[in-house]
């Protein structure tokens, strides 16, 4: 099993306070890994640390390359696309421009156009609104746009921060279906941070449980799903 | 902001004060005039610091209040025969009103916007002063000439002092009074309210500080100080003219508080010495040099010493005393 993303002994935080205290996890090449945890466990901090948005210390390897000291822009150019919490939509640009921004580091113009058509294929609602100002899209549409924008990078790893947040169940179902499709057809590995444990465990093959900045449980999705504590606290039965 | 006065500091102050009083007797009249000007600037910088340093409202336009104070004094002396010392409270009052009135709309403005509005005020001031309709009051482009006051008779009985020396003592007395008032104001509730509004406006208001009133009053008081300085300055220089009050005057005030130390009382003094004497030396190099130096000094201080000279001295003081 080749790990596309390997994280060891990761410490990170804001200002003088550390939020992560030595986190360790990995994402298999071609796999889907999910990191679960309650509010405040440090899930968003984890993703930000991996992408270089906040100060961090430890070992992070992406495709074999150490990235723990690199800046975000360079990490992204290595093929890591991050869909942040809150979606990070460019609200003043049109839907189409949002997608173009996603591909802005690429040189192959024809392929970019093809990718754009493919994104509109995955997300027909975006196609309908392609010339609309992105800030006027609904929450679900903005989430789709955020994922599409990330995919325009042709990333090796897609990192998502709570994609289900604030969205209607049907919309969430669509989005998760697309994530599975993207993973299977385009071989994009996925790192998914989610509060909605059952959804996440339905999609992922590997799972980690984060509690106050430490990994307290890890294993295959099935194993984690069957763990009694997880069942009681995070799955509700 | 230090609270009470320690005995050590009291001794230092007494020595400094004695030195200040003795100074004019050891220097030429011209130098005395220059020091008078420095005292005037100290009063102005104190005023600006109250607004920008302690209360966080950026003003790039205090030259306008200085001009108003100066012209008030000049007009009263020239056209109404008011004695020079009476023009100071008048100038202060007029400027307080103008400052407060400007402060009201300024409540809506923050940061860059306030800086821009005050900067516009500074740039427009000379033009307004030159306006033909006001000419019979302001003297138009030529301005107004003021007669230099003589030392008062009760003093002439004791010792002979020149006009310049008398003006120095007079300004010094006014400055001491104003500094004392400011010191008292700033270390009390008002001072804390000012700083609280600067740093945590919402929390301050939640705790009962009247934001709008305090901020407008800060503007008014700041303008008052600057106006008194302007009046004194006009009397010392003996004339007022529109081109003395360009935007660059406002900028030099800002240079003064940055160099001296934002949100400190002593900073007003260091800054005043700086903006009074540095141009005199720099002028000898070239006409453009003073402002180039101002600019470079501003950059150096902002990057490396944002607390100004006052902070640096305080820091050195604590190091020398062995504390950290």
């Amino acid at each position: 099993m080749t790990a596309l993303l390997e994280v060891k002994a990761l410490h990170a935080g804001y200002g003088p306070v550390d939020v992560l205290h030595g986190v360790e996890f990995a994402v298999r090449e071609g796999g889907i890994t999910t990191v679960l945890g309650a509010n405040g466990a440090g899930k968003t901090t984890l993703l930000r640390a991996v992408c270089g948005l906040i100060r961090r210390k430890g070992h992070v390897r992406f495709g074999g390359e150490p990235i723990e000291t690199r800046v975000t822009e360079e990490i992204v150019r290595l093929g890591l696309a991050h869909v942040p919490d809150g979606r990070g939509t460019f609200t003043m640009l049109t839907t189409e421009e949002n997608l173009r921004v996603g591909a802005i580091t690429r040189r192959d113009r024809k392929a970019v156009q093809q990718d754009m058509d493919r994104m509109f294929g995955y997300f027909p609602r975006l196609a309908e609104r392609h010339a609309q100002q992105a800030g006027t899209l609904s929450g679900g549409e903005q989430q789709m746009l955020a994922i599409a924008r990330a995919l325009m990078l042709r990333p090796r790893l897609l990192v998502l921060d709570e994609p289900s947040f604030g969205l209607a169940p049907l919309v969430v179902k669509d989005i998760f279906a697309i994530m599975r499709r993207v993973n299977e057809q385009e071989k994009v590995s996925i790192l998914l941070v989610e509060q909605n444990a059952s959804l996440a465990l339905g999609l992922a093959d590997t799972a980690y449980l984060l509690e106050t900045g430490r990994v307290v449980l890890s294993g295959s999705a099935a194993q984690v799903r069957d763990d009694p504590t997880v069942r009681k606290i995070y799955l509700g039965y | 902001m230090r609270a009470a006065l320690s005995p050590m500091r009291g001794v230092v102050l007494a020595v400094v004060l004695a030195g200040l009083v003795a100074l004019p007797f050891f220097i030429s009249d011209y130098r005395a005039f220059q020091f008078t000007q420095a005292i005037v600037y100290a009063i102005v910088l104190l005023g600006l610091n109250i607004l920008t340093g302690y209360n966080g409202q950026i003003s790039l336009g205090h030259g306008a209040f200085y001009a108003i104070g100066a012209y008030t004094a000049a007009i009263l002396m020239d056209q109404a025969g008011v004695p020079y010392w009476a023009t100071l409270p008048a100038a202060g009052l007029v400027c307080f009103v103008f400052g407060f009135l400007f402060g009201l709309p300024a409540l809506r403005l923050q940061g860059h916007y306030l800086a821009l509005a005050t900067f516009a005020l500074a740039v427009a001031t000379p033009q307004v002063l030159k306006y033909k309709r006001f000419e019979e009051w302001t003297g138009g482009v030529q301005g107004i000439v003021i007669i230099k006051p003589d030392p008062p008779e009760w003093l002439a009985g004791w010792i002979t002092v020149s006009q310049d020396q008398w003006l120095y003592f007079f300004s010094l007395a006014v400055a001491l009074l104003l500094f004392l008032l400011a010191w008292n104001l700033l270390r009390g509730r008002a001072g804390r309210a000012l700083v609280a509004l600067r740093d945590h406006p919402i929390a301050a208001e939640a705790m009962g500080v009247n934001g709008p009133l305090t901020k407008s009053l800060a503007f008014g008081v700041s303008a008052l100080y600057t106006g008194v300085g302007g009046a004194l300055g006009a009397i010392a220089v003996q004339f007022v003219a529109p081109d003395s009050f360009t935007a660059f005057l406002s900028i030099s005030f800002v240079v003064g508080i940055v160099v001296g130390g934002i949100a400190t009382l002593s900073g007003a003094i260091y800054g005043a010495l700086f903006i009074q004497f540095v141009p005199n030396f720099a002028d000898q190099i070239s006409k453009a040099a003073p402002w180039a130096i101002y600019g470079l000094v501003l950059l150096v201080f902002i990057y490396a010493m944002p607390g100004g000279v006052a902070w640096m001295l305080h820091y050195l003081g604590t190091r020398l005393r062995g504390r950290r």
Partner: protein
Amino acid sequence: MEAFLHQLLSGLATGGIYAGLALALVMIYQSTHHINFAQGEMAMFSTYLAWTMVDAGLPYWVAFAGTVVLSFVLGVIIERVVVRPVEHAPVLSVVIVFIALLVILNSVAGWIYSYTIKTFPSPFDWEALRNPYLSPHEIGTVAVTTLVLLALYAFFRFTSLGLAMRAAAQNPVSSRLAGIRVGWMLALGWGLAAAIGAIAGMMIAPLVYLDPNMMSGIMLYAFAGALLGGIDNPIGAVVGGFVVGVVENLAGAYVVGTELKLTVALVLIIGVLLFKPSGLFGRRYVTRV
């Protein structure tokens, strides 16, 4: 009627210059949320550079192009060296840094070139352009400004780099997540703003004569124009600039007289800041949670 038309058209001509400067201000404001108080002095300094080249014998348009390129580079350098260190500092520090820049540029220009006014040539002195309403130079100014504005519009709307700069200005974090080097986008923005300022300076110099203080009044109008149109709306800034140009001319000719024209700008600025701080065309931000 002829006089009125002349004032109106003249106002549009100067308005074009204000529009250019207002646009430069908006570009920097959009990406950094800072108002570049030194914009005018940068433009003035560039114009002096052009004057030096012309004085040395270079043909006008060569000097023009050279100045634009040089100003662009200087703008980039200023951003990286002077502005970058205070990017996240309190507002007062940033304002003071800009003021320092203003003061340094002004005094260095005075030092190198002295304070005696100089004439700056106009390349538009052609017989064919003479007419009763606008001087040939004013016509040329309108043409140049329009070209510049159109070119900028096309750049931002249709090129990748323009898109990247817009994205970086609007949402730096998301831009970094797309691989955009936001720091360099800021520097480019400053370079462009400096280049635009240089063009504006070279267009206005023949009208007001070249001296270190030539831009202070003009910048006030540019600020007014930018605020009027909406400090973060480029098209608004352009419209605002033209409006201010016309209002300034008409007010100066018919209402307050030329002596109080600056006061008009002051009143405009304060008025806009008080009553409609987002400007006439201020953006209504539409966001959904």
